[in-house]
């Protein structure tokens, strides 16, 4: 019997197995951010615990730091400075790297990890943040953890994980040119349900995944957690290897040759078996948008909302929409392009190609927050900032920005916002704010039209 990619990654890191089938796994890299990392580190400090390998820990400030143009190093959340100050203090005390608000390597933790070569194929990487599964797109075993597990990983360089079932989702068929990996993953979640992958590691595979660039794959894996998966992974291929090559923390010289040869072997064997093996034809998928308060409440932009059901009553009430109403044409008040799902250079380029020469409807507040300083600098070098600004978008500093609300400034209560983020929970972007998640292209095109719109029109 062959091995799956997941089994290979696990085997490479398995320090020991326990009688109950769980395993102690070596953790190669740990990422932290100020919101939860500060909690884990200060707790360790007060309990007098050591970090086993400080050089393998990388931290940044992304969640509650202000992203207003030319920001000072302050929090946009009232009382939030506690976390930023504490992060600086404890990082220093432990001697770990911290990319603060004024560092050129700063950005959303899941964006800078591949960008800096911290997340590499074949490694294990964890972070006290649920979207760490994003990094599975690099061929890494990456997952989100809580604070206690984070302290455990910091203190012991290991984590204990139970046995997971394995699911492969092969994406096949001819991908229409406007179809994004965001549409695909929203479609999967709405088709199968937000808890479909509970207890599973998902491997995304198939011709459509092979065709995807790394940044599109990062978007795909990012939403693995919205599918309830332990994590998502994609086998590294020549694109992954080229993407990683030469990045600051990627191996160099002779080491790079050895590493790259090793990475190329990290694929599921042909005769490997999965507990669930699905094939999904993407050729029929239309641009997707969420209408409710769970990522599973999603439809094609040209569909109508579902029937009334008892469990949806509160959802309809919150979003202010009725059963059987079309989603297309719903007026919007805000538009946001950013977040660890869709804030990389290719996302901004695609959104800019739609905004170029066009204007956002004047009553809409539209914001773009690049995922990292490096993305921002690159985008500005090719003039994307001007396209966004001329179209009427605000051009922000790097960070999580309006992806989630922690207090402070946001969209006004009751507003309808179209957003390239990953969660449409009640109040996620602010009290009473109704979030519709979609691809950056759909966000841009809807902002131009002042209403939820079918991005296919933009390509006609």
């Amino acid at each position, binding site marked *: 019997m062959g091995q799956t990619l997941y089994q290979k990654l696990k085997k490479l890191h398995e*320090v*020991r197995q*326990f*009688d*109950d089938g*769980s395993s*102690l796994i*070596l953790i*190669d890299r740990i990422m932290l951010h100020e*919101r*939860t990392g*500060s*909690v884990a580190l*200060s*707790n360790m400090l007060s309990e007098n615990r050591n970090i086993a390998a400080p*050089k*393998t820990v990388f931290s940044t400030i992304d969640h509650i730091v202000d992203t207003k143009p030319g920001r000072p190093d302050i929090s946009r*959340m*009232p009382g939030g400075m*506690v*976390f930023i100050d*504490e992060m600086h203090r404890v990082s220093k005390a432990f001697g770990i790297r911290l990319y603060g608000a004024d560092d050129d390597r700063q950005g959303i933790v899941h964006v800078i990890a591949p960008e800096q*070569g911290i997340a590499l194929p074949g*490694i294990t990487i964890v972070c*006290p*943040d*649920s979207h760490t599964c994003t990094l599975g797109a690099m061929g890494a075993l990456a997952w*989100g*953890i*809580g*604070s*206690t*597990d984070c*302290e*455990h990983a910091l203190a*012991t*360089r*290991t984590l*204990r994980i*139970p046995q997971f079932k394995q699911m492969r989702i092969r994406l096949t068929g001819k991908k229409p040119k406007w179809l994004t990996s965001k549409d695909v993953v929203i479609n999967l979640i709405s088709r199968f349900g*937000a*808890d479909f992958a*509970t*207890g599973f590691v998902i491997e995304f595979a198939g011709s459509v995944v092979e065709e995807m660039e790394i940044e599109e794959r990062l978007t795909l894996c990012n939403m693995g957690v*919205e599918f*309830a998966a332990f994590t998502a992974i994609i086998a590294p291929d020549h694109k992954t290897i080229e993407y990683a090559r030469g990045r600051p*923390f*990627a*191996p*160099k010289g002779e*080491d790079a040759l*050895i590493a790259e040869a*090793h990475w190329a072997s990290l694929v599921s064997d042909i005769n490997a078996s999965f507990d669930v093996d699905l094939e999904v034809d993407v050729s029929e998928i239309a641009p997707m948008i969420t209408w409710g308060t*769970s990522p599973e409440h999603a439809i094609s932009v040209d569909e109508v909302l579902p029937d009334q059901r008892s469990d949806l009553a509160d959802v309809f009430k919150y979003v202010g929409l009725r059963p059987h109403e079309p989603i297309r044409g719903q007026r919007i008040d805000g538009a946001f392009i950013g977040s660890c799902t869709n804030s990389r250079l290719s996302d901004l380029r695609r959104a800019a190609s739609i905004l170029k020469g066009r204007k956002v409807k004047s009553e809409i507040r539209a914001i773009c927050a690049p995922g990292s300083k490096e993305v921002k600098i690159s985008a500005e070098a090719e003039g994307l900032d001007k396209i966004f600004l001329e179209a009427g978008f605000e051009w922000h500093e790097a960070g999580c920005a309006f992806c*989630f*609300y922690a*207090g402070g400034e946001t969209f006004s209560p009751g507003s309808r916002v179209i957003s390239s983020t990953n*969660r449409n*929970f*009640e109040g996620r972007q602010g009290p009473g704010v109704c979030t519709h998640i979609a691809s950056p292209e759909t966000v841009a095109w809807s902002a131009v039209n002042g209403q939820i719109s079918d991005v296919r029109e933009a390509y006609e």
Partner: protein
Amino acid sequence: MKPFTNHIGVALPLLADNLNTDVIIPSREMKRVSKVGLANGLFANIRYSDGNRKPDPEFLLNHPNYHTASILILGRNAGCGSSREHAVWALADYGFRVVLAESFASIFYNNCVANGVLPITLDRSSIEAIADWVRIDPTSHHLSANLEKCTLETVDNSFEFVITPLARRMLLNGLAPIDLTLEDKVLIDCFIAEDMRERQWLYSVSD
């Protein structure tokens, strides 16, 4: 950590599906870098009806019958969303010791176990039957969770649940996971020494 053997208490039958950690504790309620003092922020968005923290009578926990609830009943995909352990800290701080659900998000499940809160998974029809029974008279219809026997009991019914042996052992003994693992320190060090030879490319970059 407080060991968990058994617990009898008032159950709060919310039964919601996809109840996420932002609902359990909104981000703005996580004002400090510590684990305690979070009970006030528990369910803040749905528990209070205005900025003055006036209890919203619509929310079940505010009903006198449920004030002392210590067993939370949810639907599927409980604790999905953000990894914030504050969700479990807030529950524990309020006094919750058991969460019963149809299925759990994996980070939340681990966080429960790490903090002495027992996560119990049962099928939908059992959960609904239990909730219906609780609603008849929440103040006297207490649930009893027994981790030694792995049962959840009403007065006239007993439901067996499955929990991983590791989670069970940690809860029963109130084990701090770090100390448990550090017992294997020699093993870990040997593994790393070997790994450094195998994957020198990884160790050479960050040091």
